[in-house]
């Protein structure tokens, strides 16, 4: 498979997987920030989520609200089969490339 996804896209896909049904804008943002330690603007998260949905790697539906949100519903994202495949592929690509790194001799 030749399609490549960007780093942020990959991180967000992973976060959506981790959150397992509880993934929406703020929770994805928090998850990615927690693991990477950097700050990401909400808008960037949303743009990427929608781009991934357009690419068919995510699907979404409106659901669940809380008082904090002023009783507004969240858009909950789920990974699709295609998204899962993409994640696997990119991990495989990386693993293959790691394997090709010649063993560096340490210590001399």
């Amino acid at each position: 498979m030749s399609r490549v996804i960007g780093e942020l896209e990959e991180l967000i896909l992973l976060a959506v997987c981790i959150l397992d049904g509880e993934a929406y804008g703020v929770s994805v943002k928090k998850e990615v920030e927690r693991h990477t330690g950097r700050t990401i603007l909400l808008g960037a998260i949303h743009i990427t989520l929608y781009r991934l949905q357009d690419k068919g790697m995510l699907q979404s539906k409106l659901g669940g609200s809380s008082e904090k949100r002023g009783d507004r519903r969240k858009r909950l994202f789920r990974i699709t089969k295609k998204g899962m495949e993409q994640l696997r592929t990119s991990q495989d690509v990386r693993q293959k490339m790691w394997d090709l790194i010649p063993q560096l001799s340490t210590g001399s």
Partner: protein
Amino acid sequence: MNTPRRSLSRRLADALIERWVGRVYLEEFMGDLDEMYEDRLEQRGKFPAEAMYWIDAIHLIFGFSSTVSKQSHSMFIGNMVKIAWRSAARHKQFTVLNLLGLTLGIATCVAIGLYVYEETTYDNFHANGDRIYRINQSMIWGDWTEQFSGTGPGITEAIRTDVPDFEEVTRIYFVGEQLMRAPDNGEATHFNEVNLYAAEDNFFKVFTFPFIKGSPNTALKEPHTIVVTESTAKRYFGDADPIGKTIETKSATGVYTPYTVTGLLADVPSQSHLKFDMLYSLSSVGELKTSKDTWIWTIFGTYGLVREGTDITALTKKLQALPPKYASRTTQSIFNQTFEQFTKGKPWTLYLQPLNDIYLAKEPTFNRFGPQGNPKFVMIFGAIGVLVLLLSSINFMNLSTARSSNRAKEVGVRKVLGSAKTTLVRQFIIESMLFVGVSTVAALLLVQLSLNVFNTIAEKQLSLVAHLTNPYFFGTLIGFMLIVGLAAGSYPSLYLSAFKPVETLKGKLRAGFKGTGIRNGLVVFQFTVSIALIICTFFVQKQLAYTSTIDVGISKDHVLQIYNMHQLGKGVDVLKAKLQTNPALTVVAQSGFLPPNVWGGDRYRAEGPDQPVVDLHYMRCDENYLPLLQTKFIIGRNFDPTNAADKFNIIINEEAARILGYGSKETWGDETPLGKHVVQSFGPEEKLQIIGVVKNFNFNSVKQKIEPLLVMHTDNDKHWSYSAGFPSYLSMRINPGSVKSGDDLQDLINDVKSELAKVDPAIPFRYSFMDEEFDDTFHEERKMSVVLNLFTVLAIVIACLGLFGLAAFSADQRKKELGIRKLHGASTSHLVFLFSSEFTRLVGLSIILATPIAWLLTDYWLSNFAYRTPISALVFVVAGVVALSIAAFTVGFQSLSAANANPAEVLKNE
């Protein structure tokens, strides 16, 4: 549960999102924004949460605005930026002029904004700041309608008995300069402390000055305890712990009084109207025990902390009952007057001034305990900042509309291809915002680079870097960019997008040069402002030049004066005798005040029945001082050192003679004031005999009229100010013949310094020259004139940038017309004239408009001065000529190149 109302700024952001972001996304986005807002509110507080709300909102709008309507897909933001970049790069001259003008304007505005922010946010670090009020009273020593920040200790006593609405009332007492040392150090180093006051034990219950060591509640309880700030402690004790150590004050007679350090404070923040290095306990002030009920010992500052929810208007009303009830005892015992006699029927009002208003208040203008701001200066600065920004925005609009004709074709093509009007408007607004954004960044750099200069002029320590981490600052900056971008971009965008494609594509607009009216109006506005500024600047300079040439009635040149003589005690006579032997000094004299700062005043009346009580300034000096000043006697004589009775005799000035009812030289005939008595209208009502009348001279700044003055001898102990520890000075007239160079002068000063050190090495040596002190009374005005000069130049530069751009544009538009004229035989000079006359007319109109405005402004400013330079027509003419020639020079370059162009080149395309 009821959630609190959303703040205005959040609702505004919401409205923007609703307007620009597609409806499908609204619910989830708003939900996310709210959720994050709540989180941030908890973690970081209200302001960062609001600021981040905006940042996120704007980011979302930019990310999702393209979804608002399906038709505008071709106009993504990125695309717009690309087009903006291309058109900017194609018209480099316009782009540079635009950016330069805007950058200058924004930089000025940011610098001034920093200054105004600094000035308007004084005293906001006190925990109970909103409940702290200073208690002011009527100016009982002069104009009763003015406010006076000095109050007597009796006011506090009265409030404590009668008014329960205050949680605390506290007093701070003005001590005056003191020589101090720390005896434990074994060193004799003395410091001259200026910012030393005495404060009551509850001072820190009212004000929040953080303690590093010691207890705020008990530190000032005991007599002879003192709290010091960190840097002061360092000065005395180095890095050692100051608590429990001793600091001593030295009196004029050489007696030391010890104070024990009980508290170490952090240094007082720079934005505080109370500025002290040390505070000792008010219970150490001995006189307070005997005079605690007096109302006229107005050397205290009184501050009250009102209870929560107090109605200030009602409380102020309540306070008005105090002066008639309590002050009468004071007026009776000190002035032998009833309360009504003392006030002459005027109301003795008490005022409550909120803490945050104190620094920049119009009145009282006087604050004994720290800095006092100048609201006029802040206003002038602010107005100029807004004006310069306005000028540069106008420039921007002007240049953009001018350029718009060139882009008319682009607009036409776009419209034909189906672009909606809103898309075009957005394109132009985004372009202008990009310009503003770039200019803002450049302006911030410029401010950072030039802040040092600005600080020197405004005498401030402003810093841009400190604000860069402040979300407030960023919020303001973003809001500011949006507003200026919208304001500057709105006209060209609406104007351009309204073009009819058919006409623009036919080329009608190019020939028509539409919108000239508005553009010319804007040019006139710019030049009106510039010319008015030029005229004002001229007058400020003229007034300053004039005031330094006013004959003040005394010879103020070549007078060296040294300070702190009261700390020398009797040693001052030794020093005086010693200095008199110096051949470079012709006279040496002692005095209790130095012109132009003779501010002491008291109440006197001429002897006899029913004589009115009048306020006279008084000055103490010895028999040498009036000859040193070279005052002229109208009648009578100077103090005579051989006549013992002269100790209690006085000399008055013409104005005092008039106001005491003796008349003037022309009217008194044989009935001269000599030998008559002036009664001190206080205490035991001592009589003082007049032995001379001197010609009026300016003993205060020449901003004021000459006021009545009474001169008494240094040794007169019938007046309360004798031995009250008031400052005294030695003045000496330098023989100009013996001091020929700066080095000679420096040598002389060193001589005087070493003589002083021989008498008492502990006294700090401080000196000044009288003429410089007179000049210094115009310090504020000089500062203002420098600032005005700077901004006048800026305004002119910006106006010229605009004019230059317009001229360049016009030259481009009319090059064919000029080419044809040339072809038919018009000469170059004729063409230049033709071309320039259009702009000259505009500048001429501006001169006509600016003249009355500038006249009103200068007249208003000059009305502050007792001696004012006349408003002469010449200045207006000069300013007009200057403006015209600057404009002519700016336009001339363009018109010359237009007129010189080869008609064949210009017309070959037709």
